[in-house]
Every structure is written in C-alpha cells, then in structure tokens.
C-alpha cells in the first residue's frame, strides 16, 4: 500500500462509517419519499444524519440541504442566490474551481469579480471593502480554508463587511469541516458548503447549509425533497455515512488536529533541511494537515510521478484540475512566479499517517532532489 498523503483530495472511509452505512446497502432499503414502512425507516435515518451534520458545524438541522457533494453545494449557493438577488458576485481569488467557475458561468448576465489576496493568500480586506462600496453586491463567496495551501480566512471579519454592504456571505467549508472548528453562526455565514468525503465519509454526498431567510432557486428541479430546494431520491446510505462521519469528526476533532499538526511540523522541519524548499503561506494560519511547497527548478508533475513510483500519494494541487498542467491559480493569485508555482507539491495529512511515514517521505524527497539535481537542468 502506498503512503497516502493526499487527504485534501479525498479521505479513506472510516470503518465505523462503513459499518453504519451497511444496513442501508441491504436491509431497510427504500425510497425515502415513499410512505410505506421501508420509506419511514429511511426517512428517520436521513433526519438523524441531518442532526449530526448540523451539530458539527453549528447550524440547525432544518438549515441543511443534501447535495451530491461540495461541487453541487457550491454551484447551488452561487447560482441559486444569483437567480433571486440582484447585484454583483464577488469571490476570493483563491476559491475552489466549483465556486469560481460557477460564478464565471454567470459572467454573461451580470458583473462578476474576484477579490484579491495578499502574498500569504489572505483576503485583501481593503480591496474587498472597496469592491463592496462600488454598488449592490448579491453574494460574496469566500472559502474557510484553501484546498491547496490550507490558508484559513478570518471570515467573521469578512461577514461584518459583507453584511454591512447588504450582501450575503457564502462560505466554502469543504476543506475546513472536520479539520478545524467550523461554526456557521459564529462565522456569520448565510450559506456554507460541506463535503462528506473530505472527513472520512463516503463520496457522492455533501450539503449546503443555508439560513432560513436565504432564498434559493434549485439546480435540480423535480420533487418535494429538501423543501423543494433539491429534487431527487435521497441517497440514504451516503447520507447516513455523512452523518456518522460528522459525528466522529466532532468528537475527535481535537485529537485529529493535534495528530496532523504534529506531523505537519515534523514534515516542515524535514523540508527545511532540503536546499531551496519554499513553503507557501508559511507565515499565516493554515489547516493543521496541509502544507504546499515547491522545490525551485523542479516540475511538480514530474516530481509527483517520481514520488508515486516510490509509493507516496501526493498532489500538485487540486485533484479536480489534474490533467491540466497549468500552474495553480491559487499560487498565481498569491503572486508566486509561474515557474515556482509549476513545481508545487501539496501534502495533506490524515489521521492514519505516522511519523515514520513522514520521515520516509522527507528522505525520499531528499534522494529525488539529489538525483534530479544531477540530471535536470534547473529552469
């Protein structure tokens, strides 16, 4: 088995989560909308999961809308609000493609603009204030934590600015939930997206949290499910799995944070012994499990392949963008030179990683660095 260091792409399913899902993959199956007995069992399970997810992120169960994942939740937030509210759409320059592309898809019909970040990836607050002052804004979309760099934004600060301008705040909390404390109320968010498979739950399920006052036009029309906001037969097994994964994340948050942060610090200490390594956003608060770095002069994709051959699963950035060998838009927005950004490697740690794995990774990197230094002419 390879050493898995790519938990921001996806996490393994927790065995306890699978255990909870199993009955819904065999016994009391049923369409949760059906009124007969099997349907009632399924409905109870779906509502229990809603409470579990709500407890993780400090919202009311009734504020949760199930989706097929983080991408759908982000699309529903951006497009769903845009369909009912006038005004511009603003999004952070380092947002996930699901937010950025959803906003840009509306650029033909309204004003859409990115909010700049500084060299550490933190939102440029004065730029945001200036953009808010330029006239009505429908929605501002900012992520709680970045998927590539792990940079954590002070969104309570954003919320004050956004609300003062009469706009709504959408928070992409896909990477943050289960890794750091996420409190929908305390953040002052109006909408927030979540994904199960980033917190040891199953793939194919996520949620959009939205305050009751927030009006939305659905993306998936048809059927009364989710109060008419999201049609389609409920994926009961996945919802149950998400619920249990959320409950475990809440119970174990502190332990998980402590464990991954210790490993990250060990990794960063190791990286510091390699010549020329640059850790991105090193000076600001980041997710405890995430470090993105570059070895100047090396191509990230090539390094990634070498590491893969040696049994280490890492990423050059977002899994969604793989196939495209373009430098990360996140790093470019932070002003990183394209040739440095092209060398980026993201390590994202999980609960099962060990200190031995980290040490082996650093030594492998050191060996690759030495051999590649001999064979590759640095750019």
């Amino acid at each position, binding site marked *: *088995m390879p050493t898995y260091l790519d938990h921001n792409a996806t996490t393994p399913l927790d065995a306890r989560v699978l255990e909870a899902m199993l009955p819904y993959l065999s016994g009391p199956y049923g369409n949760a909308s059906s*009124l*007969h007995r099997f349907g009632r069992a399924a409905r109870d399970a779906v509502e229990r999961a809603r409470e579990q997810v709500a407890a993780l992120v400090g919202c009311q169960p009734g504020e949760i809308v199930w989706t097929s994942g983080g991408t759908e939740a982000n699309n529903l937030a951006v497009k769903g609000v845009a369909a009912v509210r006038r005004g511009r759409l603003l999004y952070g320059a380092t947002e996930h493609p699901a937010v950025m592309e959803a906003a840009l898809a509306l650029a033909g019909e309204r004003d859409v603009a990115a909010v700049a970040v500084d060299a550490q990836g933190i939102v440029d607050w004065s730029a945001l204030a200036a953009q808010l002052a330029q006239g009505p804004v429908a929605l501002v979309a900012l992520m709680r934590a970045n998927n590539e760099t792990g940079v954590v934004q002070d969104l309570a600060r954003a919320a004050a600015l956004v609300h003062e301008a009469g706009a709504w705040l959408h928070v992409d909390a896909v990477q943050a939930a289960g890794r750091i404390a996420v409190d929908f109320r305390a953040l002052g968010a109006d909408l927030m997206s979540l994904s199960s498979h980033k917190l040891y739950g199953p793939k194919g399920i996520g949620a959009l949290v939205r305050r009751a006052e927030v009006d939305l036009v659905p*993306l998936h029309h048809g059927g009364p*499910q989710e109060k008419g906001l999201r049609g*389609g037969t409920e994926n009961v*097994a996945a919802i149950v799995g998400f619920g249990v994964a959320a409950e475990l994340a809440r119970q174990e948050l502190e332990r998980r944070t402590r464990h991954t942060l210790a490993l990250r610090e060990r990794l960063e200490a190791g990286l510091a012994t390699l010549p020329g390594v640059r850790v991105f956003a090193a000076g600001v608060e980041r997710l405890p499990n995430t470090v993105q770095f570059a070895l100047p002069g090396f191509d990230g994709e090539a390094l990634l392949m070498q590491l893969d051959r040696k049994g280490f699963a890492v990423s050059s950035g977002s899994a969604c963008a793989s196939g495209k060998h373009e430098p990360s838009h996140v790093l470019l927005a932070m002003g990183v030179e394209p040739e440095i950004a092209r060398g980026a490697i993201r390590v994202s740690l999980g609960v099962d990683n060990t200190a031995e794995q980290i040490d082996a990774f650093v030594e492998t990197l050191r060996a690759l660095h030495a051999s590649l230094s001999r064979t590759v002419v640095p750019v």
Partner: protein
Amino acid sequence: MSGFIDLDHAATTPLDPAVRAAMLEWLDDTGYGNPASDHALGRRARAAVEAARAEVAALIGASSEEIIWTSGATEANNLAIKGALEFRGAERAHLITSRIEHKSVVDTCRYLETRGVRVSWLDPDPGGRIDTARVIAALRPETVLVSLMWVNNETGTINPVAELAPLLRERGVLLHVDAVQAAGKLAIDLAALPIDLLSLSAHKFYGPKGIGALFVRKRPRARLAPQLHGGGHEQGMRSGTLATHQIVGMGVAARLAAARRAGDAERLAALCARLERQLTSLPGVLRNGDAAHAAPHILNLSFAGIDGESLRARLPMLAVSSGSACSSATREPSYVLRALGRDDRLAGASLRFSPGRATRETDIDAAAQQVRAAVGLLRELAPGDA
C-alpha cells in the same frame, strides 16, 4: 420484515447482492482514491470508473464516451433539458414535452417557462400514450428539444419513441428520453435509434441510489451547457468528485440488467398479468394505461367507489404506491392519471403495483387477496357509493 410484500419496485429496488459486493470493494482501505488523482490509488479508481462506464454504455447500445455520470435521474433530466436549452440560447426557444412526464422533467420545464422558454405540454391519449403525430404537429421553427419519457412511471405505458426519433432527427430537433423506467425492462439500442439524450437511474435496476447517467450523443453531437461547474470532470459537462463505489455499483447493475432483461421482463409481465386477473374480476376495477403498450413491470388500477386513502390504510403489509413516490408526500391525486382523463376520485383511488426480481407468485396471490378483502370491506361500509 416477514409478511411484508414489496410491490413498489418502480419507486426503488433493493441492491443486488453482486452489486453490493462490488461496491464494498471500493469502500475499503484500498478503494478510496479520488478518480481524478494522478497517483496509483487515483488511477485504480479511475480504471474502475471507466469499466463501469463501458457496462452502462453496453446496456443501451452507446459508446463509453457518451455516458456522463450524474447523481441520479433527476440531475440527468435537469442537465439534458436545461443544458440543451441554455446552449442554444433559452430566449424565444421552444420545447415540447408532455403532461405525464416525471416531476423532474415537469418542474424543469416549468422553471424554463419562467425564464422565457415556450413550452408545449402535450396531452396523452386515454391509454396514456403520447401520439407521434401530435409531437410532429407541435413542432415550430424555433423548437430546440422534445423531452418525452420512454415508459411512464405510474402507468407503465410505453411511448412510441422509436417511431418518433427518426422523424425528429430528419427535422434537426433534439430528442431527450427519460428512460428511467425502460432501462433493464425494454431493449434499448441507441446505435440504431437516433435519440440524442437519454437519462438513466441505477436504483431502478437494482443498483445504488445517488447515481445515474445521461447519455449524450457524440455523432451527431448533442451540445449541452454544463449545469455543475468546477473542476471540469466528465468532459466539462458535469464537475464534481466521482463517487467510485456508486459508479461501480451502477456498472455491475447495468451488466446484470442487460444479461437478465429478457427473462426478467417475461417473469414480471406474467406476475402483473396474474395480479390483474385476480383484481379485475372484482367489479369497478379499471386499468390505467394501454394494455397493448405496457411495460412488463407496472400495473396501475383504479378502484371505483372507494376512497384511496382508506384503501391504502387497509393495506399495511403491502408496499405499493399511489401515483409516484415523489409526489406521494403532497397527497394530491396523480396528475398523470388526471391527464388520462380519470376524475379526482378515481385518480385518488388508484394503486400502482410493481413487482421485482424477488417477487413470487405466492406474493402476488397474497397481495391480491389483501386488496380484494380491503376493497370488499370498504364497499360494504359505504354501499351505494360505487
């Protein structure tokens, strides 16, 4: 649950044990890679996703690159209709659909009406079919799309989509077919049939919930505007991390459905006929939907002179539907049966029976006996109402 008889397979089906076993392999500690990741775990998941794509394509006579994964048929129907209209420019565009489509098509078309799209809503004939000549007559120069279901989910009536498809192709109008109730029940060969877009749902053929697919024809290419933007998955038509276990489950379910289709169809038709014989020997029992064009797995009957709510209340051990599961929460008489010309009372006093692979003749006989007893009792309680 012993004694409980499930005749509601048109709402959902249990997972086939082989499907379940295949899914579990991707829920363990080696199967979790993100199919979009460029490392060994990612490549392994990607290969499984592509193998499943080929299985689903084979079920409908398509090629792999024509299959786009979605979270289910509701999303597939939304993507097909909104995607096609948006790509062609929704303003002043015209689309044709019917009054008996699934809620996900009806609601999507209604939404598009609010966005300026003109929609022609075709009525079925009394047997529940949408006549091809009516579709052709409704065409306008600005018609972009016709969306029609292959098999109606409430009545089981088969629409003449095979007859319609070449006529629309000649006229350059896209055809979207909601084939959710047809897949695994009727032979579907898209290599021969010029349908442009076709929706599928795994959990209607013993696969998992939460996964479906949209067939998008390559030649001639059906062009869609994506509805979920993001990482550019699924040829840019549908972003979002692929749920490997769900997709693998749909692939195995599709393979089984293809292998079992003819045998399943014959058995289910015989079970429906057996039930129909036992119930229509009662007076005042009306079949909803044309018997000459019936899918093998659905039987819909109205019971004259009794209240539908009371009837269902007297059948606690029988899982059947009144209308579609999606609209049962609203407890309104089925809009499909109303469109067939049934009045509110008859539409309300209807039951949809849909047997499945595990249904035995003894289940059918027991169900018939329970329904006959309930109908008899209710008619005794309110004589003369019939």
